[in-house]
């Protein structure tokens, strides 16, 4: 497993990160702990979670459950020093957390303290803001996105307040680095500028959706990540399971994400099956496993990217982790480029 620097944080993380949003819902605690053990045995040292997990669906009564499951593993294994632990502050508008109230500096501090208690640790390595308070174009909102109601002055004031709160957590040794999620290039650049101007914590990563099927990060975000040394943490690198092929022809396997969320968060579309079939055809032509090919492609992008692998089962995780160290030959990369042009943004 290749090890990489996470932005300018000073943290060294594995080239794949373990996603955990199924822990406590689709994946029970024992299986979750087995997944963490397996990931560490494969060389993964990077675990990502969030205040509001598990998902599919997010429920008020399960908010924080995933952090508790990870916290139990940390407490019983005694291996906290071996992992880089990332979690997230739920953003404004999620009714299941704080009834959707707007987040501010005080919210951030209180939420971080609560995450620390559930995780049974005294430091969060990477604390991320799950989505921007001003709104976002992610999760299919790009098709009707309008920034017209955004207020620049209010955004600057909010970001400054959040950075000052983060600074307090960093100085108290409770947070090591700061990241964003579901952000835009403009938003990230503004966070970076305010941090530089006021000597406040610098963004080290942005966790956005990115895969062969969702390539919103290919242009402006790619440029920002390269030039500002910000790592893109790619969530749903297998398109919420679509790129495995298990949903081909409308199939809905028992216990799968599609069984809980039939439209896969807006990813099921009239063009997606053809796109997946085309990518699978590339894999077949070159004798590659399509899951590992999709992950290796993500790692080969020309800007810093670390995919986040989430799995319902241990077998799925083991299979995906086989992509570690895999290098795709140029002819495969060329065919994947051509497939992308033929099947752009299927959702």
């Amino acid at each position, binding site marked *: 497993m290749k090890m990489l620097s996470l932005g300018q944080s000073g*943290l060294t993380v594995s080239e794949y990160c373990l996603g955990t949003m199924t822990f406590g819902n689709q994946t029970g605690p024992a299986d979750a702990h087995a997944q963490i053990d397996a990931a560490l045995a494969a060389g993964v040292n990077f675990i990502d979670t969030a205040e509001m997990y598990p998902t599919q669906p997010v429920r008020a009564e399960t908010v924080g459950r995933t952090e508790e499951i990870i916290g139990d593993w940390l407490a019983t294994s005694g291996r*906290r020093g071996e992992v880089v632990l990332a979690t997230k502050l739920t953003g404004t508008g999620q009714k299941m957390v704080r009834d959707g109230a707007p987040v501010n500096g005080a919210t951030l501090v209180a939420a971080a303290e609560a995450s620390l208690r559930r995780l049974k640790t005294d*430091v969060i390595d990477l604390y991320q803001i799950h989505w921007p308070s001003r709104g976002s174009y992610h999760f299919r909102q790009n098709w009707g996105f309008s920034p017209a109601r955004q207020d620049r002055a209010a955004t600057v004031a909010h970001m400054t307040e959040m950075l*000052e709160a983060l600074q307090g957590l960093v*100085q108290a*040794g409770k947070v090591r680095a700061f990241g964003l999620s579901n952000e835009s290039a403009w938003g990230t650049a503004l966070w970076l500028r305010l941090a530089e101007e006021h000597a*406040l914590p610098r963004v080290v990563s942005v966790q956005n959706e990115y895969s062969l099927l969702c390539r919103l990060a290919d242009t402006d975000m790619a440029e920002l990540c390269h030039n500002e040394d910000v790592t893109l943490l790619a969530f749903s690198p297998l398109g919420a399971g679509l790129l495995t092929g298990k949903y081909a022809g409308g199939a809905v396997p028992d216990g799968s994400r599609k069984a809980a969320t039939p439209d896969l968060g807006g990813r099921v579309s009239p063009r997606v099956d053809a796109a997946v079939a085309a990518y699978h055809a590339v894999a077949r032509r070159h004798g590659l496993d399509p899951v590992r090919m999709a992950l290796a492609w993500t790692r080969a992008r020309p800007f810093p990217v670390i995919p986040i692998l989430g799995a319902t089962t241990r077998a799925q995780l083991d299979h995906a982790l086989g992509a570690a160290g895999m290098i795709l030959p140029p002819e495969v990369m060329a065919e994947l480029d051509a497939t992308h042009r033929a099947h752009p943004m299927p959702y």
Partner: protein
Amino acid sequence: MRRLPLCLLILTALAGCGMGKNAPPPLPPVGAASVALSKAACDRGGGQWAGTAGKGMLCFRTPADAGKSCDRGNQCSAGCLAKSHTCAPITPLLGCQQLLDDYGQTVTQCVS
């Protein structure tokens, strides 16, 4: 006859000034000059010169052993965190913290 020794005395005194032999040591910088020196030293040492709410500026550094596993305070350069058994991620560590002492016992340290 009495002028010569006086001239010699003046020349000697001037030479002394020029050589700096009897000059008092420079006064340490104060105010903004002192802050600028501290900040420069912090920057040179790889630290971050940052404000603390209502308490002025401090030099924060990431210890070389930040995040490493530990069981006792003397295994870390800036404290061993009690819950995670990892070396402190920053120094100074502000606020109240549960740390492990050199015998592995949990103690509370408060720094304001």
